[in-house]
């Protein structure tokens, strides 16, 4: 946390070294987050890439109230949401609008799926409603607090917690049914 404050301070004063440190420290986390939310590695990489370029272009605009990790995650999530909206618009416009989000996209081949459980989990996550999936991934993968997620989703903390709970229940249900099969 203190390191992040110093990094931001130095980054805003023009330190390339600080920018590199921020990138190296958080890129994996952000890429994981974006990939989990999109279920599409290529788009996730593009989003993280574009975000960091944009971030680097305007250090003076950076206004940080909370943690750097949360700020970066929020920025990437906003971009993911925009990408999802654009994707949904495209799918709605097409005749094949019934396809579920992400179902026909390049799957994240880079996932280290070291067990069948994780493969099932990945498939199950893709079946969740977008808002529930977002809460679960932001909280568990992104390490974000419910309060920060509530700000991103523009809902109350209670709603976020409900989405998290319902989401996990649904995941359990999906995974249990698969196991039973």
């Amino acid at each position, binding site marked *: 946390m*203190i*390191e992040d*404050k*110093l990094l931001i*301070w*130095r980054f805003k*004063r*023009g*330190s*390339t*070294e*600080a*920018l*590199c440190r921020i*990138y*190296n420290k958080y*890129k*994996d986390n952000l*890429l*994981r987050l974006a*990939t*989990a939310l999109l279920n599409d*590695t290529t788009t996730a*990489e593009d989003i*993280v*890439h574009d975000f*960091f*370029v*944009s*971030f*680097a*272009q*305007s*250090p*003076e605009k950076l206004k940080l109230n909370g943690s750097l990790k949360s700020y970066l995650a929020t920025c990437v999530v906003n971009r993911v949401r925009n990408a999802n909206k654009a994707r949904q618009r495209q799918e709605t416009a097409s005749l094949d609008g019934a396809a579920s989000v992400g179902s026909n996209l390049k799957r*994240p081949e*880079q*996932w*280290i799926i070291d067990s069948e*459980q*994780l493969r*099932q*989990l*990945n498939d199950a*996550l893709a079946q969740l409603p977008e808002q529930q999936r977002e809460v*679960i*991934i932001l909280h*568990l*993968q992104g390490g974000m607090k419910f309060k920060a997620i509530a700000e991103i989703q523009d809902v109350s903390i209670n709603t976020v917690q409900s989405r998290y709970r319902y989401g*996990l229940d649904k*995941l*359990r*249900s999906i*995974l*249990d049914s698969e*196991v039973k099969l």
Partner: protein
Amino acid sequence: MRPAENIEKLIKNIDIDTNAKTDNAVLGDVIEAFEKSKGKKTSATEQNIWRIIMKSRITKLAAAAVIIVAVILGLTITDGPDIASVTWGDVLKEMEKVPTVIFNMTNVTTFGDNKTMSSESKVYDAGENGCRIDMYMNGEPFMQKYRLPKEKVAYRIRPKEKTYSRFVLSESQAETESDFPRQWVKIILSENYTKLGRGNINGIDVEGVEVHNSELLAGDEGVVRLWVDIETNLPVRMELEGKMMEAGAKRPMKFVMDDFQWDVELDASVFEPNIPNDYKLREEQREEQKSPQQVEQKPPRLLKDKEKDEQPMVKEVVRKLFQACNDEDWDEFSNLWPGLKINQMQKTILGGLEIIHIGEPFKTDDSATWYVPYQIKLKLGEVRKRNLRVRYDETTKRFIACGGL
């Protein structure tokens, strides 16, 4: 263990491989964007922003708190106007004040099949008291050079050939690699450089600048960087990175000067040429290294019949030599001027030159030396009008260039 019972743990454990190549490419784009954004702001604007920020009492307290915490944790904050920074205008002055320096030079060229050719040199420079350069090619000792201005003598020792050369130095010394740092700093700081901010090289806090399309690159693609110690205002590292013409093609090349030890005590024995007894003296003359201005030009004499026959061959050597420079074919250049080990600085100056005129070769006395008037235009715009010296080499039975560039 059933999957549903550990969903939270499983989601946390999901990981992905990141591709190092992609990472580097993305980081490259990010840094480029950052540097461009810095280039847009003037230093005056930055100062003003700083003043505005620091006018805020809260900011002052916050900054103070950050600094205190950093000090407690042993961290080094290396940015900020209240901390020592490089005075770029003083770098050259500081360098000239220092009587001795040791530094390393490394040159690595990468060829198409990823093979590299590297040369490394360690330079010991004590100005008037002497200069020694130990050169290595691909890790093996290649040559030792000594320049001893007080004794007006220079040596080149070639361990592989077990030979050495001894030259008499003229009053004005020829350019040597030991002058590189000063020349580079002079050129870089006279150009439109971009500040790179703070960094740390081997424990030394530094500030850097970089120049794209520097005069040092002579039109090639690449970047030149200079890193200076914020405490001493003396260079810590200089690097030139880009694609250079080498053996007929543009190849990735990196030239680095680093490990500077400024104002170091150098024992006189460092500058005593240690020539083993079985090393043979090579027949070379320091005359070849003289600049045209150092040679007193005598009037041409009438040529003998045999010499008239030789005249076209002498002229052809000069034409081929300048054509090699134009083509940046340094193998051909070395073939036509075997006595000159052309260095990177000379390559950048001579590469791509334009031949304006080559005159008729003439002689001034009965020595083997021919003079060939020439006029060339260097890529940097300088028009050079001098006489190139050519002589007949008895060993190889052909004419070779030997001075006057």
